[in-house]
Structures are given as structure tokens and as C-alpha cells.
């Protein structure tokens, strides 16, 4: 018997939980700019997330999927993706979408139950949130196929959760990406939970990154709480894709510090100890410690930024709350390029009902 194939899955991390370097750091971290930007963006993402949860509690936003603990993944992706790349996101990529150009008020509109949030011009060619799990992975391969057919140096980037990797869609997407060597980057936000189902029950393999191996594509694990590790890995994957060197799967190890959504209560199924331990590893504190030690960030800057963030959020919120409601006809007008005659009678009824007070629904 001979061994015909072996493989290794790498795990990379640069900053320890305590914010100390674990190995020599890359060139770009020798100056403050990028790291400070990452830090500021993560602080903004977290404050906004807190605010949205508060809005949900008072009925000003619908069921919301918090990003708490996943900030680093979004912030790094948002920084490194070019505007010519295309994002095919899942429902937990708010900060990434905003860095791509989605105005805060449009993002809030979406979570406030208004599809106009998906219409935002700020989204460019990006897809709206995929709610049916892992479907986005296949759309990303289609976008990447279009790039490849046209010979464009662009990357399709898609994100899913650890649970999402169990769906056929995900495996089928990896497979076609490998078969056709498509310019696509798959990111797994492995936050250890799919609602109440722990990562260990999703699949028998020790890593999710190794699913790439069977598809014939690059696969690796990174510390998803470490912006430096993420930066290195994502940057390389994007270059590969744009240069026609094929797809990459990146499994970013994070932790869902929040409930699954505002409709969930995680205390039913996971221990407080586990949650507490996860808070020790979260991404913001460790970068802050590192920046402090370098002398690149201090209390004065922190206070100033916190205040500014408060204002940015207030502005987005005001804009969101002042949106006029949708026209009743929006329910039907965007279904086809041209409304079929058969639907015109229903449209009339819709408008008539709306005039009579819209919903007489008690």
C-alpha cells in the first residue's frame, strides 16, 4: 500500500489573547495606520450592534442577528476587498456591508423590515443578505464564473456560518469552485454555534477548513479574533483569486458572544462559563492592548472616538427613523420588469385597501 495523498491544515495567529505578539509581525503592522483603522472600525461596529439590540427591544427594529464577537472578520474583509470585488454575504455581515458602502440608515431599514434596505445604491453589485442558509455560496460561484468568463481580475467573496457548511449548497459550491478554479473566497465565520447546535454536532472532521481539501482548493484556519492573522490570510486569498490562481476557503475561528438573534435565548443551551471564557478571546480588547503598548492609542483618543461613534450612530438612526413608509404598491411593483396585465386588478385592490386605512388588521 502506498500513500497517494496527504494534507495539512494550517492555523495562524499573531496576537495572543493578551495582545502580545506570538511570532514576528508582518511589515504592514510596523506603522499604526491600518491597525488603528481596524480598531476604530471594530469599536463602531460594536457600539452600533449594541444600539440595534436596544432598538429591537423597544420595537424600532425587527428580529436582529447580532455581530458581537465577529467584528474582526468583517472589518478586515471590508478593508481588503476592492470596490470591484463582489460580496455575497449572509445575514451577519452588517459591518462588512457598511464598509462596502451600504449607508447605516439603509442597513437599519432592512432590519426594520423594509426591503428598500436591499435596494441601496451603496451596495453596488453586492448581493442582499442570504437568509436561506448557505445558498449564497453557490451564488458566489456564479459571480466568480462571470468574472472568469470575462477574464476580469475580480474576486467574489462569500461568508457563511459553521452550521452553513453542513448544507449541500456549501459543498457543491466548493466543488465547482475547485473544478473550475474560480476566483472566489469562501469565509466561514465559525462562531461555534448554529443557534443551539454546537460545532461538534455539525460535522465529524476536526476542522471545517479541510472541506476544501476534498474540493481541491486551498483551505486554512485562522484566529478570527486576530485582525493581523485575518489580514494576512484574506489578503493572500484575494490576490490568488484576482490573479486567476484559484479559490480559497478560510475558516475563521470566532465565538458568537450574543444570542443567535434577538428572538433567541442562549442560556437555554450553553454555559455561562463557556461564554465568559470566550469573552477573554474577543477581538477588540486584544487589539486595544496591543495598540496601547505600542503607544498608538490612548485613553484620550478612546474617549474622543467613543463620542464620535455615538454621533455617527445617532445620525444614521435619525435618518432611518425619518424614512417615509413604502407605498402599498411596492408590494407588487417590483416583482417583474413589467407588471403583467393579470396583476393589475390585484394592484388596484391593494391601493384601494391602502387608501381605506391600509391594514384593517387588528
Amino acid at each position, binding site marked *: 500500500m502506498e500513500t497517494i495523498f496527504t494534507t495539512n491544515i494550517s492555523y495562524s495567529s499573531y496576537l495572543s489573547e493578551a495582545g502580545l505578539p506570538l511570532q514576528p509581525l508582518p511589515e504592514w503592522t510596523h506603522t499604526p495606520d491600518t491597525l488603528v483603522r481596524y480598531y476604530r472600525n471594530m469599536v463602531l461596529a460594536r457600539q452600533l450592534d449594541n444600539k440595534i439590540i436596544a432598538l429591537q427591544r423597544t420595537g424600532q427594529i*425587527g*428580529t436582529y442577528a447580532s455581530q458581537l464577537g465577529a467584528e474582526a472578520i468583517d472589518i478586515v474583509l471590508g478593508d481588503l476587498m476592492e470596490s470591484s470585488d463582489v460580496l455575497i454575504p449572509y*445575514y451577519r455581515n452588517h459591518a462588512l456591508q457598511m464598509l462596502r458602502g451600504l449607508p447605516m440608515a439603509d442597513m437599519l431599514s*432592512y432590519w*426594520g*423590515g*423594509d*426591503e428598500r434596505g436591499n435596494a441601496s445604491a451603496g451596495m453596488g453589485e453586492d448581493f442582499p*443578505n442570504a*437568509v*436561506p*442558509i448557505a445558498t449564497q455560496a453557490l451564488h458566489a460561484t456564479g459571480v466568480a464564473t462571470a468574472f472568469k468568463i470575462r477574464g476580469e481580475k475580480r474576486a467574489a467573496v462569500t461568508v457563511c456560518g459553521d*452550521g*452553513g457548511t*453542513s*448544507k*449541500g*449548497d456549501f459543498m457543491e459550491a466548493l466543488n465547482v469552485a475547485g473544478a473550475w478554479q474560480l476566483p472566489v473566497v469562501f469565509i466561514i465565520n465559525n462562531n461555534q454555534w*448554529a*443557534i*443551539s*447546535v454546537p460545532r461538534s*454536532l*455539525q*460535522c465529524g472532521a476536526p476542522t471545517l477548513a479541510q472541506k476544501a481539501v476534498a474540493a481541491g482548493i486551498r483551505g486554512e484556519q485562522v484566529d478570527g479574533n486576530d485582525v493581523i492573522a485575518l489580514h494576512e490570510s484574506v489578503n493572500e486569498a484575494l490576490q490568488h483569486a484576482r490573479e486567476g490562481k484559484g479559490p480559497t476557503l478560510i475558516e475563521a475561528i470566532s465565538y458568537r458572544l450574543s444570542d443567535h*438573534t434577538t*428572538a*433567541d435565548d442562549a442560556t*437555554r*443551551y450553553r454555559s455561562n462559563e463557556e461564554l465568559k471564557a470566550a469573552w477573554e478571546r474577543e477581538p477588540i480588547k486584544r487589539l486595544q492592548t496591543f495598540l496601547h503598548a505600542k503607544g498608538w492609542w490612548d485613553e484620550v483618543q478612546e474617549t474622543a472616538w467613543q463620542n464620535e461613534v455615538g454621533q455617527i450612530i445617532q445620525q444614521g438612526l435619525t435618518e432611518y427613523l425619518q424614512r417615509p*413608509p*413604502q407605498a*402599498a404598491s*411596492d*408590494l*407588487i411593483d417590483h*416583482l417583474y420588469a413589467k407588471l403583467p396585465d*393579470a*396583476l393589475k386588478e*390585484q394592484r388596484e385592490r*391593494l391601493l384601494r*385597501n*391602502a387608501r381605506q386605512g*391600509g*391594514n*384593517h*388588521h*387588528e
Partner: protein
Amino acid sequence: MSNPLTIVESVNLALRSEMQKDSSVVVLGEDVGVNGGVFRATVGLREEFGIKRVLDTPLAETMIAGLSVGMAAQGLKPVAEIQFMGFIFPAMEHLIAHAARLRHRTRGRLHCPMVLRVPFGGGIHAPEHHSESTEVLFAHTPGLRVVIPSSPARAYGLLLAAIRNPDPVIFMEPKRIYRLNAQPVEDNGKALPLDTCYTLREGSDITLVSWGAMIKETLEAADKLAEKAISCEVIDLVTLNPIDHKTILASVAKTGHCVIIHEAPKSCAVGAEISATIAERGLLNLQAPVSRVTGYDTVMPYYQMENHYMPNTADIIEAVTGTLEFS
């Protein structure tokens, strides 16, 4: 669990009751075990029956459906939960190409006694893709049975029947009324028939046919119309495949008028089947065309527009009045 029970509690009671009596019943799905289901329908089952009878599955609806087909062919009775109707589509291949056909293809050598439970319908301000009513896709599939309870007691008896039925059953749970109107439910192990509708209210002027959560608005409309001396007969369809046309036709023969109410879009929906059958077999009893109060032929909207989409009590009253005034 203390009586009175809600619909979701009755679902839980039926599962528990049948699992106690029949060791071949296995509950499976996403979040059904430790978490007890996102709507709490399976709460406590894992504690009582253990991890071999209550399976937290990986996140994959194609797998849940296909796996259930295999389990059922082996003589188990899988009762699988699909978390929301909007996520049932990956399961379709196995339901339509296999579950519905296994008995027929093998001339009965193998069969498929599985139940797929799935919460459906709008009106709860849920995220996108969490509010659809796509019952017709299943009702249109020969070989499947489709059942929709609208009260706690019927939820209990119908779920028992669904589990005991030797063929695949899609058991759709109207989540808008999951926790409304609790009523006493006796854990008597009695299954209800899977091929009859229920006349919830007798009347002489007009027949109202509905199912699921819209039964609530239909009964409200009947109450309000009674104040105007209009007597409505209200029929809860309950089984969408097969349909108990006999009861509906007998009612229409009596009243001469019919309005069908459903939340799903209008075109090619189950209401059309009922209306067509009345036209085929009861035309001469009709004093006015059959009318339908339905959702619009559009995508179930995200929640800001939900109330524009949902049929309501006033719509039903208007349709009834229009039908009775037809000349």
C-alpha cells in the same frame, strides 16, 4: 404540562404521547433537542426519550428529508421538523421524487411513514423568508398528505393521526396562532381522521372555507356578519390533500354561496381547487360565483408590508356581502 393547552403545547403533547406508546417514533431536526425547538414544540422530549429518539441534526434540510425517507423505509416513524416553511425547499426533491412515490414505485414493498412538521404563515413580524404559505406545492403532489390544524385539540388528534399514518404527511403548523386561545386537551391517544373537514359553525346563508391561522379572521367575520343577520357556515378544511369535497359541496348545496379564504397567493392555490370542484359538481346549487379572499400574487413581503399582504376580517366581510348581493 398543565391544561388548557395552546396549539404548540398540543403538538408537544401529541409527540410525547405517541413516543411513549410507539418506540419507532423518532423526532429529528435543527435545534429540536437541547433547545426544544425554536418554537418550543419539542421541549422536554430529549430529556424524556434520550438522544437516540430525539436527534439534533446538522443544518441541512435536504439531509433531513432524505434521511427521513431512509429511516421510514426501515420501519421507523421519523417526525422531522423544518424550522420554517421558507426553508423547506431543499427538502423538495426527497419529498416529491421519493417520499411521495416510494410505496407506488415498489408496489408497497417499501413505504414511507414519515411526518414533516413545519411552522408556516405570516403575521408575526418575522425576518425575510420566515412567513410563507406554500401549502399548495405539497397539496399538488400525489402521494403526500397535507394537514393543517387550527385549534389545540385538533392539533393533538391530527398529529397522532399523521404519525400513525403509513404514508408521508406534511403537517403544517400555523405559527401566528401557535399560542392563541388555549383550550382543554385530553391526552386520550385518540387520532382524528385525515380526510374530513370540520364544520366549526353552522349557518344557512353562505359557506366560508378556510384553514390554518385564517380561521381566526374567518370566525371573526362570521361573528360580525351574524350581527347583521347573515348566517355563515364556517368550514375548516384541515386536510388539503386529500380534500373532503363532500362536506363542502353539501354545505354549498344548503347555502348557495361560498367564499374561500387563505393566506397564500391566489393563483393556482388550494382555493382554486375547491372553487373548481364546486363548479364541476355543484354549479346548479350556486346562487353567485364562488369568491376568494387571499394573499396577493406576490412575494410574501418583509414585515413592514405584511399587513398590506395579509387578508383580514374586513376583506372577508366585504367578499361575503358582495357574494350575497350578487344578482
